[in-house]
């Protein structure tokens, strides 16, 4: 009966139960349920050991199926999923339960393998279990995008999901080749195919499972990580770094199958040229081929095994080298070229990673090169970049700490530190080779630690170089003589060696083959032992193999630890020779290292500057970059450089070093060797120095050394000359701006200006003078007149005598009227306005009364519309008792005569026609007084009463012809205002008598009185005569006064004008 340990209390419970009998907690918890059950592991915390079997339920279904061999629904590759490890049957017993419970918990599919393989894996499995069990829930939330979610069921056939930090996965769309190969191998081998190393180092398997998504191929370094550096291992390390690389490796494996067809030319050249490496490859290849467990790429040629790594670093290294592809090879490259060991710098780039780690990972020792290299491949970009960016540098302090620390094993370097490490490679290249490097040089085996990476890089470089037509000479040199320098094979060889180092007795067969191959490779590498540094041999091979192999994938964690330790930095400065290196001894440099370094085709291309280093007497260039690769202190400096000069610092500038100034290689070497003092300068200063030198050398010409003497640029050099080639400047001519204008033009302009000025000036506003004096004067005159008139009227006294002497026109008028026959018809024309009615009444009254006395029929006519009314009103006022006006008897009103002069003429011509007046249905002309009147001259007398000169004149003019030869007198009784104009007609005899105004009426009355004809009704003229006389007198006085005032005013004005003149 199956028993399940309670994940909470740890007590055993029957497998059928779902809850613990003791603590009542769920025995089978999903990952989500584990959130509350356990404590999440934070970075830096050491997880507690747990049995991975407890998390069996979290295995994904496909993995469970793979383990059971029952996964028939998976893809063909997945169907070929590797069979469970040897201990799988045990795990299979648990799988059914797990499948039932945790189909949705695909995270820790590796844990099941752990449990399957060995339940005794407590140390390694514990942290993985914690990670799997505890971190899985967190990863659901915290895993950034791009990183494959751990929760997601990852099937063998699924390509790893790319992350932002990862390189893009190989888009094969299928199960990575290496995985499929592994699965196929495992399927073929079943449980026996599991290498022994997995059985021995079960601690490492969980990591390997996470990383490679493979069964039973957990590398040792992962187990080491699980043991020693739980804190440094983070989900990102578990998932993202591994999967893509593994995928690429799988592709590489697949690529290896097509080696014959798709192998690049350079690969073929390398393969064909490098006999030694080919031999090593051949040594490894048979081993791999013999071992069915190995993936294809491992079982194939080394050249085929390298491409996965090469392809990843292709782009980066190709970029770097392409910069130099146009023929301007950087000096550091030329240095490498000259020494013939430049490629070894790449080899050495990875050496520190491995050299610092005594625990060489299993993947290095066996077919896990694919799984181990991915960790390093993640950092290839940075590595490749910083190799060229760090031509100078100093030994970082932490490296010295590393030297002094004997426990480097506890802090294996993690791949993350590689950028800094690789930067230091170039930094150390300038001269200050750290002591520990010298120690490393002494140990030959240290070189073999990292060759997989460096060699892969070098191989990739060659790929790009060959693709480039401008292949540098040194690269061609590398290719041509590089028969023993085949790039890719060393990687495989080195990895194989690592595998061999890590492999023990339990190592699977294929691993054993690898180890043997490693040995062979190591021997091959030893063949050029003349170039092997002695210090490499001094390194302890055991320690190195034990540490470096394991530490290689964990370089990041260790380097991080060293980066943050100031004490170690301080110690590193003091210590010239790292003790730890000496302690590492020979065992630290396993055969893998030796094989790597020795077999590396770049050994002969060591830069000379490495030879000149005091610590490296043997001039082994491999150790120098490997040591400098750990210089982490310079990494900030480089970053500072980037910060100061911007990230966009051109590559050529960053790549320029003091040695780059000169093109010739020997000179560059000399500078490199002599630039010990320069190495002390900050890297960014050194980065700037070449620029200044180059500019100074190229731009300093005599023409450009012109110094500005004047102007705003005074004192500056290199300015353009002010007047190149011109004579001295002279002052410009002074041109007169005065216009030459004639006087006439000036005068015209002045006039025009005046006119314009007048137009623009507003005309002064002249306030009208107040006429207050006028009303006063008016009041004075009015009051005087009013007082005189009123007083004369009210006095009733004859203050002024009536006119004594009658004028001739009045006398004539009186005589004519007085001589009229009785019973005649007198035509009285009333052509005056109402305003003059009083005056006309005074003038006409003596006449009309006299006519009445003569029993003259009064026939009234008017050419004015108002005339008939005025005539009627006047007659009514004039004719009073004893006379009485009776129309038709003594009075006939002919009415209005229209037509003015025409009417007058017509009436003068034919009165009957022009005045068809009817009274009582009878024509007036039929009345007795008018019966005899046929024409104008038939009237006894014609009296025209008018105040208008024109009417008087018209009557005179129009009637002149009608009265020309007649005796009918024409009398004018006019207003005083018309007298002056009508008097000539009297003087000319056209008018027989003339009475004008009040004076004419008064005169006529006086004549009547004088002739004894005075009547009581008379007296209008006399009544007004006094007032009239007073009024005229006042008027004359006022006129005289006014004339005097005006005269005086004129005199004054004349005097003023004279005085002013």
């Amino acid at each position, binding site marked *: 009966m199956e028993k399940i340990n309670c994940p909470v209390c740890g007590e055993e419970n029957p497998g059928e139960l779902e809850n613990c009998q003791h603590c009542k907690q769920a025995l089978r918890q999903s990952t989500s349920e584990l959130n509350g059950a356990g404590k999440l592991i934070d970075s830096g915390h050491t997880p507690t050991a747990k049995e991975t079997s407890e998390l069996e339920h979290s295995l994904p279904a496909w993995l469970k199926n793979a383990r059971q061999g029952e996964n028939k629904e998976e893809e063909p590759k997945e169907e070929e999923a590797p069979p469970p490890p040897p201990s799988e049957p045990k795990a299979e017993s648990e799988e059914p339960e797990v499948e039932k419970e945790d189909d949705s918990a695909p995270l820790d599919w590796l844990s099941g393998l752990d449990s399957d393989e060995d339940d005794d894996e407590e140390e390694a499995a514990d942290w993985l279990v914690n990670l799997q069990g505890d971190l899985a829930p967190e990863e659901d939330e915290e895993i950034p995008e791009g990183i494959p979610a751990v929760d997601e069921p990852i099937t063998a056939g699924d390509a790893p999901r790319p992350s932002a930090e990862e390189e893009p996965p190989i888009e094969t769309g299928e199960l990575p080749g290496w995985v499929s190969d592994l699965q196929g191998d495992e399927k073929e081998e079943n449980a026996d195919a599991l290498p022994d190393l997995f059985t021995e180092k079960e601690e490492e398997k969980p990591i390997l499972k996470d990383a490679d998504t493979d069964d039973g191929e957990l590398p040792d370094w992962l187990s080491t990580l699980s043991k020693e550096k739980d804190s440094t291992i983070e989900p990102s390390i578990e998932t993202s770094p591994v999967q893509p690389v593994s995928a690429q490796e799988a592709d590489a494996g697949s690529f290896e199958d097509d080696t014959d067809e798709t192998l690049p030319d350079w690969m073929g050249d390398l393969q064909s040229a490098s006999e030694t490496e080919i031999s090593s490859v051949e040594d490894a290849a048979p081993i791999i081929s013999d071992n069915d467990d190995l993936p294809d790429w491992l079982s194939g040629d080394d050249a085929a095994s390298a491409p996965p790594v090469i392809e990843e670093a292709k782009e980066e290294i190709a970029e770097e080298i392409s910069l130099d592809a146009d023929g301007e090879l950087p000096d550091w490259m030329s240095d490498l070229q000259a020494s013939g060991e430049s490629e070894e710098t790449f080899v050495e780039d990875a050496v520190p990673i491995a050299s610092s780690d005594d625990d060489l990972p299993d993947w290095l020792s066996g077919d896990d090169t694919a799984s181990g290299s991915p960790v390093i491949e993640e950092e290839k970009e940075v590595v490749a970049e910083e190799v060229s960016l760090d031509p100078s540098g100093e030994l970082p302090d932490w490296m010295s700490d590393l030297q002094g620390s004997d426990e480097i094993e506890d802090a294996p370097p993690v791949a993350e530190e590689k950028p800094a490490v690789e930067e230091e490679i170039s930094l150390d290249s300038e001269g200050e080779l750290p002591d520990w490097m010298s120690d490393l040089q002494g140990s030959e085996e240290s070189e073999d630690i990292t060759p997989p990476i460096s060699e892969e890089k070098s191989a990739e470089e060659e790929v790009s170089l060959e693709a480039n037509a401008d292949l540098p000479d040194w690269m061609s040199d590398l290719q041509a003589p590089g028969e023993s320098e085949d790039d890719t094979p060393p990687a495989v060889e080195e990895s194989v060696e690592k595998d061999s180092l890590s492999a023990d007795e339990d190592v699977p067969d294929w691993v054993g083959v690898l180890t043997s191959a490693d040995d062979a490779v190591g021997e091959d590498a030893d063949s050029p032992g003349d170039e092997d540094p002695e210090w490499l041999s001094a390194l302890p091979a055991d320690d190195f193999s034990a540490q470096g192999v394991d530490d290689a994938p964990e370089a990041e964690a260790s380097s991080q630890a060293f980066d943050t330790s100031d004490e170690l930095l301080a110690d590193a400065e003091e210590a010239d020779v790292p003790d730890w290196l000496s302690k590492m001894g020979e065992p630290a440099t396993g055969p893998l290292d030796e094989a790597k370094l020795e077999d590396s085709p770049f050994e002969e291309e060591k830069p000379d500057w490495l030879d000149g280093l005091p610590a490296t007497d043997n001039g082994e260039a491999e150790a120098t970059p490997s040591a400098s690769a750990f210089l982490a202190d310079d990494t900030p400096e480089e970053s500072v450089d980037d910060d100061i000069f911007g990230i966009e610092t051109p590559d050529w500038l960053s790549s320029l070093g003091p040695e780059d100034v000169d093109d010739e290689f020997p000179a560059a070497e000399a500078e490199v060797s002599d630039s010990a003092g320069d190495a002390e300068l900050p890297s960014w200063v050194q980065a700037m120095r070449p620029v200044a030198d180059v500019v100074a050398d190229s731009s300093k010409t005599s023409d450009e050394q012109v110094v500005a003497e004047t102007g705003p640029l005074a004192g500056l050099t290199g300015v353009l000359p002010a007047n190149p080639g011109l004579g001295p400047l002279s002052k410009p001519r002074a041109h007169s701006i005065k216009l030459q204008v004639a006087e006439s033009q000036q005068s015209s302009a002045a006039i025009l200006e005046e006119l314009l000025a007048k137009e623009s000036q507003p005309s002064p506003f002249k306030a009208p003078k107040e006429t207050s004096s006028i009303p006063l004067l008016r*009041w004075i005159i009015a009051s005087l007149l009013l007082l005189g008139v009123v007083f004369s009227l009210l006095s009733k006294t004859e203050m002024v005598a009536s006119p004594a002497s009658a004028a001739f026109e009045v006398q004539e008028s009186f005589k004519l009227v007085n001589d009229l026959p009785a019973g005649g018809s007198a035509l009285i024309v009333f052509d005056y306005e109402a305003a003059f009615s009083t005056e006309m009444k005074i003038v006409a009254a003596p006449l009309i009364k006299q006519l009445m006395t003569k029993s003259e029929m009064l026939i009234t006519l008017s050419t004015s519309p108002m005339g008939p009314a005025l005539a009627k009103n006047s007659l009514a006022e004039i004719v009073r008792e004893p006379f009485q006006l009776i129309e038709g008897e003594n009075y006939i009103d002919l009415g209005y005569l229209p037509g003015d002069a*025409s009417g007058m003429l017509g009436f003068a011509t034919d009165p009957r026609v022009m005045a068809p007046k009817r009274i009582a249905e009878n024509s007036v002309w039929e009345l007795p007084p008018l019966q005899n009147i046929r024409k104008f001259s038939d009237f006894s007398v014609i009296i025209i009463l008018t105040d208008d000169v024109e009417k008087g*004149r018209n009557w005179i003019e129009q009637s002149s012809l009608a009265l020309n030869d007649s005796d009918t007198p024409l009398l004018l009784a006019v*207003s005083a205002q018309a007298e002056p104009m009508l008097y000539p007609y009297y003087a000319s005899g056209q008018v027989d008598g003339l009475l004008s*105004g009040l004076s004419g009426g008064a005169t006529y009355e006086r004549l009547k009185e004088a002739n004894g004809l005075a009547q009581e009704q008379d007296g209008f003229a006399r009544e*007004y005569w006094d007032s*009239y006389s007073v009024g005229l007198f006042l008027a004359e006085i006022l006129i005289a006064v006014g004339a005097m005032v005006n005269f005086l005013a004129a005199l004054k004005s004349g005097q003023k004008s004279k005085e002013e003149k």
Partner: protein
Amino acid sequence: MELISGVFAFLFTVAVLSYLFGDNFFFRAAVYIFIGASAGYVAALLLGQVFWSQLIVPALSGSIEGIILMVLALLLFAKAFPPLSKLGTPSLALMVGVGAAIAIGGAVTGTLFPQVEASINAFDGISLFKDLGKVFEASLMLFVTISTLVYFQFSAKRDDGGKKQRNRVTRSLAFFGKIFIAITFGVLFAGVFSAALTAFIGRIDFLIKFIGSFL
């Protein structure tokens, strides 16, 4: 009736005299009333005494003259309507022509010739030594007439200096003619003032009598 007419006459007289204090409502009201009353009176007079008696009645009587007058009157009435204004032109032309002819004929025959003749006749029949007064009068009248006429002689010749100037005789006569014209205007002003003063006296007398009638 006389009282009412007298009251209105008094009020209107006072309103017109109020102009002594300047233009005011009473003055304007009196003026407007006078104008309106005159216009109404004139319209009624014309319709009754002219249009009806001298136009309609003759036309209705069938006389040719009356019809001709009616036609001419209607054509002249067409002047009130712009589209038919040209129809009134013959009537208007007849009126203007006849009026001008009458005016000119009357002026020539009634003023110019008689006045020239009178001026000439002033010297007729008088003895230079016996009637000095008449001679002086006639000579003065002649001189005033000539001088006045010469004053309106504006033609001139350029002298040696280039200035346009009338001859001395013309200038001398014109000078006197200007004086005589001024005297004439003075006489006319005296006649106007005399007429106005007479009217003023008549209005004051009316007021006094009207007010005296109530006292």
